[in-house]
Each structure stands twice: as structure tokens, then as C-alpha cells.
């Protein structure tokens, strides 16, 4: 596989992103390494070709934002909004992720080896997220669809106003948000969890060690009797 290297110390981010937005026919199958990101924002955003991008270090806000098809690995930590609105592909953060990781992501897989900050998976719309560590408060707020696996603990208000997303937590949950409740894990959901654990490098972890959470669906229709729950 051909490998191309870009050094953000010497190459403007604009040129790197422009290259990565090139014709899929010429990019597909390429391996690209981005060195010295030094916390730069918007690295490898808007990718739409089958490329394998490795960011050698820490990335700033919105790394791999709106990703399609591509595989992006961040060999460091990621700032706010990593893989936000991802449509497909894989984004793997080997360190920690800041706030709003995977926000509104529609598809694909976001793997975070470390902890994630506040509002991880906010308004999730169908993507899968696996966090090796813990997640901050208000994670999965208004999460609509997709699967969200947390191997560590969850902060306050997990799954507040959640729709149809499925949450799997191995550790403790400080508190559940409005309309989020514990669910009984059925065989199909257990298989989803097992597959995600395998894909994210946690094949040795038993799905049986997780609890599942989802929507109680009591707030799906606005009713005055529920006003106190909002």
C-alpha cells in the first residue's frame, strides 16, 4: 500500500485537506500519515474516499468531522467534536476525546480507547461508538439511533430525552436522564454488543458484564402531565 506523508509543521492544513478531498479513484487504497498535528483543528475533515489516514499526535476540534468511508486513526487525543456527524468509515482515537465526541454521527464506528468528555454521542443518529474508558455527563443526550458502548463509567444524565439509540455500560452510571431506563438485554442486542467489542479491540470483555439502557418512550408525545420530567 502506497504511503504518503504530510508534515503540518511545513504544509498548510488547507493543502492537506484539499488533497484528501481529491478524486476517490486516485485516493482509494492509499495510506496517509499526518505528522505534527500539534492540536490543529479540523484535521482530515470531510473525507469521502477509502483512504487510511493516521494522525501522529494530538488533534484539535472536529478531527475527522463528517467522515465518509475513510479510516482515520488519531495516535493521540482528540479535541471537541471528533468524528462529528460521521456518515460511515472508522475513526479511532487512541488517547482521550474531549466533549461532544461523535456528535450527531449517522453511521460508521468511533472508537475511543481512553475517556471521553461531556456530551459524548449527543444526538447520535445511527453510528456506533465504543469508549474504552468513561464518559462525561449528559452523554447520549437526545440520541436517536445507533449503539453506544461504554466500558467505564457514565456521568450524570446519561441518555437524557433519548430516542431509539441503545446504550451499553459496563461500569456505574451516576444518574440517568429524563426518559432513560435500564433495559433487559435480548440476544440480538447482546450480539450487537459482542460484535462492537470485537471490532474495537475488546474481544476479551464479556457482553454479560454490561447493563443496557434505552428510552422509556414516555416523552415521545408532549403531554402536560409530563411537564415536570422535562
Amino acid at each position, binding site marked *: 500500500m502506497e504511503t504518503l506523508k504530510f508534515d503540518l509543521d511545513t504544509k498548510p492544513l488547507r493543502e492537506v485537506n*484539499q488533497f484528501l478531498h481529491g478524486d476517490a479513484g486516485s485516493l482509494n487504497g492509499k495510506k496517509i500519515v499526518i505528522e505534527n498535528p500539534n492540536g490543529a483543528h*479540523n484535521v482530515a475533515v470531510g473525507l469521502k474516499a477509502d483512504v487510511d489516514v493516521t494522525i501522529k499526535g494530538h488533534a484539535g*476540534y*472536529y478531527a475527522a*468531522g*463528517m467522515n465518509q468511508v475513510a479510516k482515520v486513526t488519531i495516535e493521540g487525543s482528540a479535541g471537541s467534536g471528533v468524528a462529528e456527524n460521521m456518515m460511515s468509515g472508522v475513526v479511532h482515537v487512541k488517547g482521550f476525546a474531549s466533549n461532544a465526541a461523535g456528535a450527531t454521527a449517522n453511521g460508521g464506528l468511533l472508537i475511543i480507547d481512553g475517556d471521553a468528555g461531556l456530551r459524548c454521542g449527543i444526538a447520535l443518529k445511527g453510528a456506533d461508538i465504543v469508549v474504552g474508558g468513561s464518559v462525561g455527563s449528559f452523554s447520549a443526550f437526545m440520541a436517536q439511533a445507533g449503539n453506544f458502548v461504554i466500558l467505564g463509567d457514565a456521568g450524570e444524565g446519561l441518555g437524557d430525552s433519548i430516542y431509539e439509540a441503545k446504550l451499553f455500560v459496563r461500569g456505574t452510571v451516576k444518574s440517568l436522564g429524563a426518559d432513560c431506563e435500564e433495559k433487559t438485554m435480548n440476544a440480538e442486542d447482546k450480539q450487537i454488543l459482542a460484535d462492537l467489542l470485537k471490532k474495537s479491540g475488546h474481544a476479551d470483555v464479556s457482553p454479560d458484564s454490561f447493563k443496557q439502557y434505552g428510552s422509556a418512550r414516555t416523552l415521545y408525545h408532549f403531554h402536560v402531565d409530563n411537564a415536570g420530567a422535562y
Partner: protein
Amino acid sequence: MSDNNHKTPQTKPRYSATFDEYTNSEIRRAAATGIYDIRGAGSKRKLPHFDDLLFLGASVSRYPLEGYREKCGTDVVLGTRHAKKPIHLKTPVTIAGMSFGSLSGPAKESLGRGATAAGTSTTTGDGGMTQEERGHSTTLVYQYLPSRYGMNPDDLRKADAIELVIGQGAKPGGGGMLLGQKITARVAKMRCLPEGIDQRSSCRHPDWTGPDDLEIKIAELREITDWEKPIYVKIGATRPYFDVALAVKAGADVIVLDGMQGGTAATQEVFIEHVGIPILAAIRPAVKALQDLGVYRNGKDSVQLIVSGGIRNGADVAKAIALGADAVAIGTAALIALGDNDPHLEDEYQKLGTTAGAYDDWHEGKDPAGITTQDPELMKRVDPIKAGHRLANYIAVMTMEAQVVARACGKSHLHNLEPEDLVALTIEASAMAQVPLAGTSWIPGVSKF
């Protein structure tokens, strides 16, 4: 001493100005239901507005242009500051963002057809871009909203401009609501929601919180679209000076400023009528912010200003531009041009407990005009070709009316109109628009009487 030959005179029953008929009916409705009133449209109360301003036509001291012969330009360029491909429009009258979901597919198609025929832009809304809309709109602005319903990068790339929505005039600080009656299978699929539920839209963006984050978010949108597209930032009018300044600092190419008369698909009545300020009060502070930052009509570095909220005719267009706007946007007026609230449907409005001209329960999805509905039978009533034609006619009339006024003031382009061409009829309008009270040189808060 009483006059036994005559009855004692009675005073006529006196209604309270405070507890008027509408107020009392709302108290009774609230008491019966236990829930606040939700409706569509913008503020309906009497507000200081463009009607409170007048143009000073040319006379001895100014030289007019010949009404039918001398050129008066109407074109506008939006997004010159950073975008490789700015928007060029023939008229400064644009179509405001309205969603597929709140509006029917044929209504959205009509807006696209009408805007295209008139040489202007139309705008998507919460819920994403439909193929009909993209296909029938030469210039389409793609709204990027807090909910991100239906948001995907392919549509972002298909757009001609991106409008990052922070708020709207009807409900600055509020999110949206689309009740289950309108969440049909297609709408639900586009928004990734269960069919038939009451859908809430967030009031805040999920992945940024303040102006410093906004700057990075705008940079992300530019990077994803390779710096080709103008990026608008839409604000509900509350603190226009500071909000515009921060949006410019964050990198906006265009500011869209929406006053409280601007419509919404559905929000609480209390929100619509009591949060935000009229567009008349918002334009001058917004322009001042642009001037103070050196981006007001300053060549390529300019940030353009689009204003909306109660624009109805060419006089409103000309007044908004004279106060400093580069363009305007219409929403409610465009729906009326398509056929909303038309008197020929009076019988059907009566059945819904309302009357033509007052119908605003757009969220219920029962619109007899087929515009604010997802009912497959009702929406057939909208003929996109005919409705689009009416909208194009209406925009053409507004544009011509604005030209009439501008020529009378001696201006060879609408953008040459200026505050000095205006006076105010009321002290309130004078203070808000910062133009003198008619017949005086007094501007409250600016000069002494």
C-alpha cells in the same frame, strides 16, 4: 333628584383594554387544557415597523431619476469575504429557510421554482435537503441547524451557500417542535426518528458552545467544502450589535438577522410574542457592528447583511436596504403568495375554528391550502408550477416597487438608498431606526429636540 318619568341612564358595558377578548379567551383555553398555546407564524401584535417610516423623495435639493427609463440596479452579491464562489442574485428579495416537514414537498418545490424564476435564492430548513428542492432551485442555501436533522456532507457540498442557524426571530433562544401529525414516514426517515412522535429540535448546537468554538466550526465547514461556499450566520434579533460583531469575528461571510415578526413552523405563543425585538430596532445596531469592524460595504472584505421579519412589499424592501441591509428574506409573505390563508378557502378555515387570514395552527398539519401539511391529499392542492409563478410575480412586484422608491430618491441602485432618505412617523420608530422624526431633525437618543 331622580326623574321618575325616565329610566335611569345606564353606562354602556365597558370592556377592559387589559383583559381584552383575545386575552380572556386564552385564559379560558389555558384553564381548560393545562397547556400553553402553540402556533405557527411570527408576532401578530402591533409593533413599530417599516410602516412607521417614510421616504423623502427628491425635490429641489435632490435630483430624481426618471421612473421608467433610467437604470436602477437591484442585483446583490453575497459572500465576497472568504468564499471562492459568492452568490449573485438579480433581486435582493430572497426566500427564508423553511423546512420540508413543516412545509409539504409541493410547497418546497414551489418556493424553489418561484425563487429561480425571480433570480433569487431559496433556503432549506430543519430536516435536510430534498431532491425536489435542489432540483428546482438554481441557488439553494443549506441550513446547518442545532438538531442536524437530515444533515449530511453530500448535501452540504451540493449547496450554493451554507446558513449556520443560531436562532430565529420568532424564538431566539428556543428550539423547534414538529408534532407527530407531520412526522410521516418520509419525514421520519430523513430525520432518523420514529414515525409519528412529537419531534423536538435543540436550541443549542451539539458540538460548540461559544463564539470561539463557532469560529472553529465555521472553519470546519469551509474546510469540508474547500472554501467555495459563502457561510451565512442566522441570528434571532435580541442583542444585534454584539451578536453580529461576534459572528463576524467568528468568520461569517453573511449575517442573516431575523426580527420577531419572522415566522416559525410551531412555537409557544408566549415565546413568539414576548422574546426578541422587532426588525426595525435591530438593523441599525447590526450595521453599526459591521461598520465598527470595517466590514460594511468595504469591497471584497464586506460582510453582507440580510434582514427578515415582516417584509411584505417593495417599500419594506427599500426601507430595510436604506437602513443598511444588503438584502431581505421573506417567509410568511412567500407562503401567502403560494396560497396560504387565501379567502377562497374560508369555509374550510371555519371548520378548523379559524378564519382566512388568521390561520396559524400550522403544526397540526391540517392546512386546507396544502402548504403547511404532510397530508398527501391536502398537499395535492398545491400546483408547484402555478404557485411558483405567483411567487415569482410577487418578488418581481416587490423589486419594482423598491425601484420606484429608489428612483424617486435619486438612486441608481437600491444599495444607494441610505438612512438620510428616511424619516419616522413616531418617536418610537425614530429612536429604533435612528432617523429623524418627520418635520424635525430630532432622533431620540442621538440628537436633542
